[in-house]
């Protein structure tokens, strides 16, 4: 009898304590995305009685996007309620953690950052405040995961997290677009907090994908350039410039190279199957130079101009045109990074560090200005391996 009692007691104390400090999922503010904008006192102060005194005078806005659990359709049936599946809440303040706690004055449930997928930062904010400062909390905190992705927007970050379509959660769409890297050369490898951590503390300049929003829709559009020394935004690369950059860095995994040689109606599309970039640094008598070789293989996927010539001639001609087109993109990418921004975001310094570590030690502290004047040559090899169900000849 005594033993049974003891056993029951022990079992119940072990099993029942399982729910100790549990939190109901419906009562959690499950955060999926964060947007950082310049401070907007008027829009976000919600009629506070007193202004929070901040001696620095620096204010910015955080927008937290969390899942609206009551609106998420349960089961396989689509809800069709038309209700938005997410809630955005904005607060203004001087530091991230302070702003998070300001939300506690407005909402009964705490925000939980275990599932945060994306942080969108406004470019305007990053022009004068460094990335390290703005993201310090998220790199330090125990809730946020390092697999979270960072994006930059030229416009308002808050708007990026606001979609017209109520059936999708904007943060998840942003992460999903990033997975399309095999379909476009204009998508950079996602900048996770893990990668950003390394970039922030090194002197290397880096790129972060830029996302724009217009009338409730988003689009990945080019990239923001960050200076390695200050971690501040120094400018943007346009979508067309990005193709050249991803080809050099090897981030391009697939996508289309459009060719429009000569007259109208001669469009051709080359679909990249494999693309390989080899950067060879050279150091001769202290002079640094680079050679970039790009080798691409793929398919002639669309052809508007049918020729009467033999297939192999058509293919050689197309390869030539594609090569020329790719070379133009490389020239443009180098022009933008070397001449306009003077920031090595194409990984040449990285190759120098690996191949000539001792030379790198000498130049690394001032690499970006050295990079701006370093001679870079390139060569492109294009190989059309097939042309689909139709041959390119009439």
């Amino acid at each position, binding site marked *: 009898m005594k033993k049974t009692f003891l056993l029951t007691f022990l079992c119940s104390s072990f099993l029942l304590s399982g729910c100790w400090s549990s939190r109901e999922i419906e009562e959690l503010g499950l955060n999926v995305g964060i947007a950082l904008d310049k401070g907007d006192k008027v829009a976000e102060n919600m009629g506070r009685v007193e202004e929070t005194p901040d001696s620095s005078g620096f204010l910015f806005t955080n927008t937290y996007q969390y899942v609206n659990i009551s609106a998420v359709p349960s089961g396989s049936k689509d809800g069709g309620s038309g209700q938005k599946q997410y809630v955005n809440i904005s607060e203004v303040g001087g530091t991230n953690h302070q702003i998070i706690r300001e939300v506690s004055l407005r909402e009964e449930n705490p925000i939980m950052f275990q599932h945060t997928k994306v942080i969108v930062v406004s470019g305007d904010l990053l022009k004068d405040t460094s990335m390290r400062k703005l993201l310090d909390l998220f790199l330090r905190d125990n809730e946020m*995961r390092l*697999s979270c992705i960072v994006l930059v927007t030229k416009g308002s970050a808050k708007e990026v997290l606001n979609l017209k379509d109520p059936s999708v959660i904007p943060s998840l769409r942003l992460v999903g677009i990033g997975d399309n890297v095999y379909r476009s050369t204009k998508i950079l490898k996602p900048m996770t*907090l*893990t990668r950003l951590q390394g970039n922030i503390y090194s002197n290397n300049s880096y790129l972060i994908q830029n996302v724009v929003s217009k009338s409730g829709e988003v689009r990945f559009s080019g990239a923001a350039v960050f200076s390695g020394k200050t971690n501040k935004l120094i400018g943007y690369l346009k979508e067309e410039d990005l193709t050249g950059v991803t080809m050099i860095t090897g981030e391009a995994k697939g996508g289309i190279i459009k060719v429009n040689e000569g007259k109208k109606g001669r469009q051709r599309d080359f679909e990249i199957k494999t693309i390989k970039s080899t950067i060879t640094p050279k150091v001769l008598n202290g002079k640094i130079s680079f050679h970039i070789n790009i080798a691409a293989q793929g398919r002639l996927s669309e052809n508007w101009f049918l020729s009467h010539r033999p297939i192999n001639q058509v293919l050689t001609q197309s390869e030539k045109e594609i090569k020329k087109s790719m070379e133009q993109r490389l020239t443009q990418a180098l022009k933008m990074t070397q001449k306009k921004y003077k920031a090595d975001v194409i990984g040449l310094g990285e190759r120098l*560090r690996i191949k000539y570590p*001792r030379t790198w030690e000498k130049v690394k502290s001032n690499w970006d200005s050295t990079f701006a004047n370093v001679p870079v040559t390139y060569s492109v090899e294009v190989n059309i391996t097939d042309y689909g169900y139709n041959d390119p000849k009439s």
Partner: protein
Amino acid sequence: MITHSSNKISTVQAVLIVTNFILASGILTLPRKAAEAVKTPDVWISIIISGGIAILLGIIMAKLSQCYPDKTFYEYSAKLMGKWLGMAVSICFVIYFCILSAYEVRIMAEVTGYLILEGTPSWAITIPFLWVGYYLLIGGITSIARLFEVIFPITIIVFLLVIAMSKETLQLNNLRPVLGLGFSPVLKGLKPTILSFIGIEIILFIVAFMEKPKRAVRAVTIGSLIPIFFYIIILLTVIAALSVNGVVHRTWPTLDLIRGYEIKGLLFERFESFLLIIWTMQIFATFVITYFAASLGIFQVFKVKERKVFLGLLPVLFFISMIPKTLDEVFMIGDMLGKAAVILCGVLPLPLLILAKWKGRMK
């Protein structure tokens, strides 16, 4: 039960005791400490060299113990160095093991308190841990060895699994160039990396329990090779994921490696709790073995009853673990322990071995 006449362990168990003692809190912090000193991706070479040094020291200690095959260090130190000096060194070892034991408990409480059980008071994490350790200790060294046989395969499998899944986040360029700045950065890394082999000194105390004391050298060598393998994998993957510049600023870099990926389509998406589970098991192993070594010392030097020693030490360990107020103070204790280990396990054994051989020849 603590006496070694009836309690014998096999060679494999001796290997596992050495391995499980060495693998401890260092797993999570080693990449940062090593990268801070080396500053190039060559940290993994440092760990191979310091591992070699550690094995050498381990062999010296094993040889020393083999001179008195059925006695622990506490027993033969008096014979070797005279009654008082021997006793003093033994007491140093007891204090060292006590602090090491408490340190491991505290690190465990810090990490679980920050990452898993936020809000749980640290005494509530520490006390059950201590009591379970006490319960295991009553069974003597054979129970400890058997537990290690259970947790070791789990550790290996889970560890390799969670590391392998980080594949996507690894950037191999972060590991290059190899020896780009020559060999001198590698040498700078020896000091912090050799400290991650603390635990090898347990061979001084377990040879007496081994069924075949002649195999002590083999036990200590294999027992250290396994941690070297663990450490190399950790250093390579963590540096590849976070880069040297990123690692030096992270408090628990190895956890960051696991927190840096999510696997879609599997039963679980995130795996840091798995790493923390095996890590906690390893901390428990180290805690138990140091607790055992400290109790053994008090038992053999002062001839106190074993149960009294076990029970009496519990509050002592608890209070020592509560002394540091901040995380930084905890790490400082870790550094102090490192210095103590250098003297006790690095400097002391070789002269003692020479002394023992000389005395043996005199007879």
